[in-house]
Structure formats: C-alpha cells, structure tokens
C-alpha cells in the first residue's frame, strides 16, 4: 500500500528484486505440487534413474489408473475408488446437516436472544477448540452402543456433532451484523420464527452458506483422525486409504502410484479452492480469527 512516487533507478531495481523474491516464494509453494504431478506421470523405471525435479521423458497414466482402481490398501487391492465414494457419502450429508443446524443455531443466537443464549454460544464455541483426542475414547464406545461403530452413518454423526460449533459460529457472526429491526418489522408484519428465517434470513445468507459449506467440506474431506479412529475396512475415507497405500509395506514401493493417489485425494478440495478461493479464505480467516 505504500507507494514510492519517485521512480529512480534504485527503485526500479528494488522492484525487480521484489518480484524475484515473490516468484521464489511461489516456486517454493509450487514445488511439492510440481513434484507430485511429474512423479505421478513417470514410470517407476524413470523415477529410479532420473531426477526428482525433471519433467517426465515419457508420459504415462498407468500410475493413475493403478491408484484409482488397483492400488493396495492393506489386504485389499481395489485402488482409491471405493474410498473416494466413501468420502463423498460421508462429506455430503455431514456438510448439509451441519450447515443447516448451524444456520438455525446462528439465527437463534444472533437474533432471538434469550437469557442463556450467550452461554450456550460460549459452550458451543469452546467445543471448537478441544483437541479431539479427548473425545476419541468415549466416542468409540458410544458409536458401539448406538450400533454405528465402523459405519458411514457413524462418521457422519461424528462430523456433524463436532462441526456445529464452527457452523454456528459462522452464521452467528454473519447474522449479528443484521439489525434487529428487521425481525421486529417482520414480527409486526405477522411472520413467525420459521417464516422469518425462511423468507428473510435464508435468502440473505448465500455468501455465508457458501463459506460454511466450503469450510465444512474441506474439513470433513481432509479429516484423518476421525476416519482412522472410527472406520473399518470397508468404510474408510480417502485420507485413510491414501495413508494405507503410501505406508503399505508389501511389494515394491511405487512412488508414482503414491503421488497419483495423493493428487486424487487432494483434487476435490483443490478444485473447490481454485473455483471458490475467495470464500475459502473468508472461511479460513473467520473460522480461526474470530473463534
């Protein structure tokens, strides 16, 4: 933001230097992605003889097809495909449910305050900050009691329960900036709680819905701890499967398959980031600063 109006020789040099430094940083951040992509497109032969940072001499998509449908995660060798779908089946309902609950909660806490609403909010907020290790053991037992152990509905439940803290926070922070007069006017117009939510607040909320959905989707898709703790062989999410592929000790180490798997696992959130980066960043800052 600070501009130098004088454009002397040293200033030009400084600016060139500045751009060089910034590009070096960009290079640093892009290097792992570059390495992942190029490695995934090389044959194992080439990986062993060539250099990490060189472009593939011969493009081959073998590693990708292996990663998708043949790679071994432990005993089974069906690739990432089933786990990719597991993650989808976990993430989509969990995102939808937790976003919806968060919207209603935020609406109540911001606009229908009652005696205990702030305390409830504080309790919810605190829930965002606990290290999940502290609930792993009882959660495993409760899932067992509910007959949900190792199941996808069980994982959905876990993600919803520990997601509503954040979703509520997002919607609450969005709704507090809406003047209370709006509700008063609607009450006088004769609308009730749900009518006001449905006709007035929900149509307003598109930006925060996008932020929340993106945040929740990223969190749930990228989750590993819950996945590894509460799933079993057939229900693992993709992060767990990826880790199993990479760390399986049987057979030859296929680095190209590892990298292809990693990219496949990263692709959905990466796409979301590229398409809706603005909302992603907003969620990130809101979720971590204001919390």
């Amino acid at each position, binding site marked *: 933001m600070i501009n130098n109006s004088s454009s002397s020789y040293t200033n030009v040099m400084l600016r060139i230097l500045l751009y060089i430094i910034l590009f070096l940083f960009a290079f640093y951040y892009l290097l792992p992605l570059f390495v992942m992509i190029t490695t995934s497109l090389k044959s194992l032969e080439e990986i062993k003889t060539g250099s990490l940072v060189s472009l593939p001499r011969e493009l081959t998509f073998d590693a990708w097809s292996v990663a998708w449908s043949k790679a071994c995660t432990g005993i089974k060798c069906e690739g990432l495909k089933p786990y990719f779908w597991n993650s989808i089946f976990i993430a989509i309902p969990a995102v939808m449910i937790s976003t919806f609950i968060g919207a209603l909660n935020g609406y109540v806490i911001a606009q229908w305050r009652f005696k205990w609403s702030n305390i409830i909010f504080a309790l919810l907020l605190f829930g965002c900050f606990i290290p999940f290790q502290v609930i792993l053991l009882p959660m495993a037992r409760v899932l067992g009691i509910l007959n949900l152990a190792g199941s996808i509905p069980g994982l959905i439940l876990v993600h919803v329960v520990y997601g509503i803290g954040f979703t509520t926070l997002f919607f609450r922070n969005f709704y507090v900036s809406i003047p209370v*007069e*709006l509700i*008063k*006017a609607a*009450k006088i117009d*004769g*609308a009730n709680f749900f009518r006001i939510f449905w006709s007035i607040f929900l149509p*307003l909320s598109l930006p925060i819905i996008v932020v929340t959905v993106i945040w929740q989707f990223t969190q749930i898709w990228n989750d590993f701890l819950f996945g590894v703790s509460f799933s079993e062989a057939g229900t693992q999410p993709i992060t767990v499967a990826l880790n199993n592929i990479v760390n399986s000790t049987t057979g030859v180490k296929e680095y190209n398959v590892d990298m292809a798997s990693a990219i496949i696992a990263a692709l959905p959130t990466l796409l979301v980031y590229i398409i809706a980066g603005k909302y992603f960043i907003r969620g990130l800052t809101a979720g971590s600063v204001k919390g």
Partner: protein
Amino acid sequence: MNSVLNIRNVNKKFGKVNVLNDININLNKGEFLVLVGPSGCGKSTLLNCIAGLEKIDSGDIHIDEKNMINIEPKDRDIAMVFQSYALYPTMTVEKNITFGMKVRGLDKETQKNKLQEVVKQLQIENLLNRKPSQLSGGQRQRVAMGRALVRDPKLFLFDEPLSNLDAKLRVEMRTEIKKLHYDLNASMVYVTHDQIEAMTLATKIVVMKDGVIQQIGSPFQIYNTPANIFVADFMGSPSMNLIKATTTKNKGQYLIEINKNKKKPAILKYNCKENLPKEIIIGIRPENIIEKNSSKDKNFQAIKSDVKVIEPAGSDTFIVTDLGGSEVTARFHSESEVTLGSEIDFHFNLSKASIFDPKTGNRLN
C-alpha cells in the same frame, strides 16, 4: 373522544436500570403524539413496548381500549416505521410492501389493490421491482412508510423515521408525513430527538428524560410554558436563556436583581401572584429579548450590557451578552447596527418569561 392508546403506570427495567418509570400517556383518535428526549432516555423502548416487541414489567397498555397484555405484535393492529427502515433486503419493493399481507393470507386481488393505492399515495410506482439496495435514502423511507400504510392500522408508530435523511429531504418528508396524517386522520406516535420535528408535527408532545416524563402538552404549551428547566433548555433553538437572579419583594411587586460582570446589578420589576423564593432562574427565549421597545409595550424593560458575540442568521441577528454569570442570547433585527464590545440596551419582555426554582428545577409561575 375515543382513546386509541392508553398507557398506565408502565415500568420497564433492563437489568437494574429503570428505563421507563411510571409512564402515563393517553392518545385520542387522530392525534399526533411526538415523543422527544435526549438519546438513551427510553423513547424507542417505550415504542417497542407499545408494539409488543418488548415486555413491560408492570402497568397496562391499552390499544383501542383493549388490554394488550400477552398480545403478540402481529395482533395489536399497529404498524411501525423504523429509523433504519428495516426493509427486507432480498425482497423487491413490491414484496416488501405486500409481505405482511401475504403472511396474513390475504388474497392476491386485495393485496394488489392495496399495493396500488399506497404506491400511488407515496409516488413510488416506478420503484416496485427494485431491491432496497438500489434505492436512495428518501425512497427507502417511502417504502418503509408504504409497508406501514398498507396495513391500515389503528395506530402508527414511527421511530425516528427521518433521522437518516439529509437536512433538505428531512424537511420535505416532514411535510409529507404531516399531510399523510391529515389525509388519513390516522393516530400516530412519533419518536424523535429533533425538537423542531416535534414542534412542527405534533398535536401533543411528550418530553422524556431518563425514562421519566417531564411534560405532556401541546407544542404551544411546551414551548411557552415549559414545566421545568430541562424542558425549557431542550425545546427550542436557539434554546431558552436561563439567567440566575435574586428577588426582593417591594409593594406587591418583585424586584429582580441580575448580576452584571463587574458592574452594578440590573434591576427589573416583575408582577406575579405566586410567592417566589430568594434565588430564582429566569427562563426567557431569545425572541423576548429585543433591541428596542418598538411597540411602547410596558412589558419591556431595558438592561444595559456589553455585546460579546454577533451571529447573523439571515432574517435575524443573534446577539450574545453576559448576564447573571452566563451567556444570554437576544434576537435582533438583521438590519440593526451593533458593534462588538459596545454597551447597548437589551429589552426584556418579562411577561413571557418562565421562573424556575434553582433547587428543584420546576416552574414557579
């Protein structure tokens, strides 16, 4: 006379703070009641209580002679216009105005007719498909009024509806609201902290301070016979001069002595039936202190004093001097030739003055 709004002994607390303190107000059909008072005195709270948006702790509110206890805002037959307009941001102007009717399940035909009627009245026909964000302040204001008007309620409530407009627009809308009131013969409660708005619109003014009603009366009464120093000071611009003075009784007449800076005190004669204490505060409006006694009116008495400030204000010129230890403003003709620092005559019309007790602040005459 049928009462549209009757407020009896209403109290309201927020936590430990008494926001409304034993409020009693009656409003008859067709009256325009203006609630004035400084910021934070409880005007909006009172309005919200009338609307049922806030609960009262004790007392009764009757609208159209029905007790409103436990009656929801939507069933009170009121309409309200807010300072921030509170237009529904995602709805068009048309939807904003018809939302209330839609929620109440009125048929489409009625909705349309009502809409047309109101929209014509407010001259916003060409705005129907816009969103609030695409409107100017004045247009938003009209839409907010429209939303209230379609309801055709027993009672209109306005919470500082003009305070977000610029000065010129404010004057325009003020006139329009007044016209509306006249055309509809509607009953209105109007909150403002702008005392000019209060004076021009009201048929009845309620002056509040710290949750306590200071005075209820017509604009004329409030302006000319303020009940206490607070009302005197708050209403009118420039505000009433408040001059410290001492009295002595002399043959059925009071002699009022006003201290002058380093000079001999000025003495004025004053007739009054009431017993005055030794120390008083004279409240006198600038227009009752003038340059010369043109009409040879006996009520005028002169005091010599130095000119401290000259403030030309177009049609008049305000002259400031020091009397009784405080600044006193007089209203002179704009042609009067006065030089700064000179000693001139100020003619006081004491028959128009208010006398206050400095201890209680209450009116004595």
